[in-house]
């Protein structure tokens, strides 16, 4: 309904609400299937054939094949689901964050050891716009 949402102005964040959940349903169901070894084996031996079982959109399918982690989120994926595909690829939560933030693993890890990303300047999209972040 294009209703404005009170969390729409938080930068760099997807809120997995009912609209996202509806859009991402088959993508997320694919991801959660990676929880089981037999499914991982089947997927890893022929990704395209395995993906045929899940009626996701062409864009969602391509995002999976490309391991476009931010793309999956934009298409209704949720991190707890996509992290199961990442685990299949041997990528843990912190490494995944390194990829999604574009910082890379080492820089991201150092930021966390230094106390994490500050809320200052990271609360509103307008703050990112000023800094020229997207």
């Amino acid at each position, binding site marked *: 309904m294009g209703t404005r949402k009170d*969390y729409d102005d938080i930068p760099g964040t*997807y809120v997995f609400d009912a609209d996202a959940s509806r859009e991402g349903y088959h993508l*997320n*169901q694919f991801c959660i299937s990676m*929880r089981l070894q037999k499914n991982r084996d089947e997927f890893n031996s022929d990704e395209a054939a395995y993906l045929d079982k899940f009626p996701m959109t062409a864009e969602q399918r391509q995002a999976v094949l490309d391991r476009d982690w931010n793309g999956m989120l934009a298409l209704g994926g949720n991190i707890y689901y996509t992290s199961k595909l990442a685990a299949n690829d041997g990528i843990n939560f912190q490494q995944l964050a390194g990829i999604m933030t574009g910082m890379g693993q080492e820089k991201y890890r150092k930021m966390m050891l230094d106390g*994490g*990303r500050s809320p200052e300047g990271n609360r509103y999209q307008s703050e990112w716009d000023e800094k020229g972040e997207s």
Partner: protein
Amino acid sequence: MARITAGVGCSHVPAIGVAMDTGNTKDAYWEPCFDGFEKSREWMKKANPDVVFLVYNDHCTAFDASCIPTFALGCAAEFHPADEGWGPRPVPVVKNHQKMSSHIAQSLILDEFDITIMNEMEVDHGLTVPLSVMFGEHGVDDEWPALVIPLCVNVVQYPPPTGNRCFNLGKAIRRAIESYEEDLNVVIFGTGGMSHQLQYKRAGLINQDFDTDFLNRLTTDPVGLSKMPHVEYLREAGSEGVEMVMWHIMRGALDDEVTEVHRHYHVPASNTAVGHIILENKKS
């Protein structure tokens, strides 16, 4: 009569479980995190609860996207640690107090909480990591020192239940437990949080001021704290920080006046701020 004597707030970061399961708790990265749990484990031995009422959330493990209960109460005889993609954690099977859990289910529904009853359920790190944190190392063939009644809350798909609803559910859980005839010592856990964001470009957000204020207000202003709107968690504590609504269930189940007997706060565990608190009802 059963009674709730204390509440525990506790992050349930999966990496904490991994560190314990792989014996890395003494390395430089993990030592400061685990140091703060020493006192908790001593306290837990003394508290010696018969039952832990454990509020947590499933992370797309037992529940896939087809069925998303707001509140799911575990009523099965036992709950097996789930395979979250790298094999089940090597910890004991979780045993329920099944009669008490069905009593609570019945009481909550008549008290107008619309819970889902689960007669079969696997449990993920959201439940087993807090048990490991508080009870220390226990291998698969061992037993957890207490029975566990799990309450699983949806915080993955927005919206989670409101903080106010969670606080009032805590009160209803207390009424349910206090109307159970067996003489049992119950400790309630609220888990999840503190500030963390696992996803997209803002991943890694940590807000120590927010977390500290939250821990303070659990004792000094629990009702006010429970009124915080979801958007404030999302903005201030990160998209996954909204897990903290589950702590209000724990807090609602305690007395209005409580004593803080232990607190521990540490950054980071993986992507997350680790927060932990123990609150006791004043002895009567």
